[in-house]
């Protein structure tokens, strides 16, 4: 169930993870897993098509870097990406707050 929810929110998770600074795909997958205390375990390969989609929409930028002796594509939030992250995060918090109130009222 958590996996399906991640799929629908992967873009926001990646934008949020990139808010901490530039990172490559492996770091982003690890960051999402760790920051969610292991709750969000996704097929790590799905991160890349999502990153490519965000880049084609101008929300992130990327460039090749050699890190730790390996050539990696490092991603970074663009100005538009920062705005999108803020907007989507606010939407999500409103939704989560509403859900919590409904769940709290029924328990």
């Amino acid at each position, binding site marked *: 169930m958590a996996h399906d929810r991640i799929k629908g929110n992967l873009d926001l998770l990646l934008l949020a993870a990139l808010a901490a600074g530039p990172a*490559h795909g492996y770091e982003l997958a690890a960051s999402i897993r760790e920051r969610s205390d292991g709750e969000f375990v996704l097929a790590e*390969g*799905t991160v*890349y098509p999502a990153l490519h989609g965000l880049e*084609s929409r101008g929300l992130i930028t990327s460039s090749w870097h050699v890190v730790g002796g*390996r050539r*990696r594509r490092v991603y970074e939030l663009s100005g538009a990406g920062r705005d999108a992250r803020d907007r989507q995060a606010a939407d999500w918090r409103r939704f989560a707050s509403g859900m919590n109130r409904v769940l709290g009222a029924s328990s």
Partner: protein
Amino acid sequence: MTSDRIDTYLDDMLDRLEGTPAERRRMLSEAEAHLRDSADAFERGGMDADAAQSAAIAAFGDAPTIARVSNRRKPAALLAAFVRAAAQLGVYGFAAIGVAALLARGLALVTSVQWVYGAPTGYQFTPAQCAHWLAVQPGASNCHTAAAMESSDDSFLFVLAAAIIGLVVAGVILAMLRLARRYPLGTASRLPRNVVAAIGATAFLGAGAALVAAGAANGIARGVWGQGVLYTDGVVALIFGVVFLIRFLRTIRPVSAAAA
């Protein structure tokens, strides 16, 4: 050459990825760096190298699923890809028509206009038909010759029409390419080359075989006009089909013989 699990996985993924060479190369490079990082981390956690690679691949996701997610296209990009492929094949089709028409003209010079364009031997014209052909081709000595000459003239008009349509299609392609440069669709807006080549090979070889068969059948049944045209059209279509088939076979050559 030795190969590890990650190499085998990447070979499998490359075989399934679609898009431009740059897109496929990028996805593969990122996947390899990710898998090697992940395997290193599992090894530091105490796994042996082989188990660490297996664990890294399991965490990354199976190649068919990841390739499928990576290959997903926007509807606009998909539509553009189909239009582009259809236009590309259309240009070849019109070129084939032009080449076949020229070949038929050449064949008519070395054989006879009658055999290439005319009615089958023994065809009986009604008096009305005969009058019609002789009226439109007053220089002809008999009905058969007049009909063959008129058919030859018609084929010239047909080629002229095909050339105009071909130029329009080529213009549309050029306009699309210019638009694609100005408004990129993000993901690749072209069908994989092997798919286009397979469609081209099937269409041209099928059409070529059908036309040659019709020409041969005409030699027996003597029911259709222009046996020579059927042969020239068929031969040209077969040649175009063979070119597409060679292209297709080149695109499906195995990338690597590496085993797990």
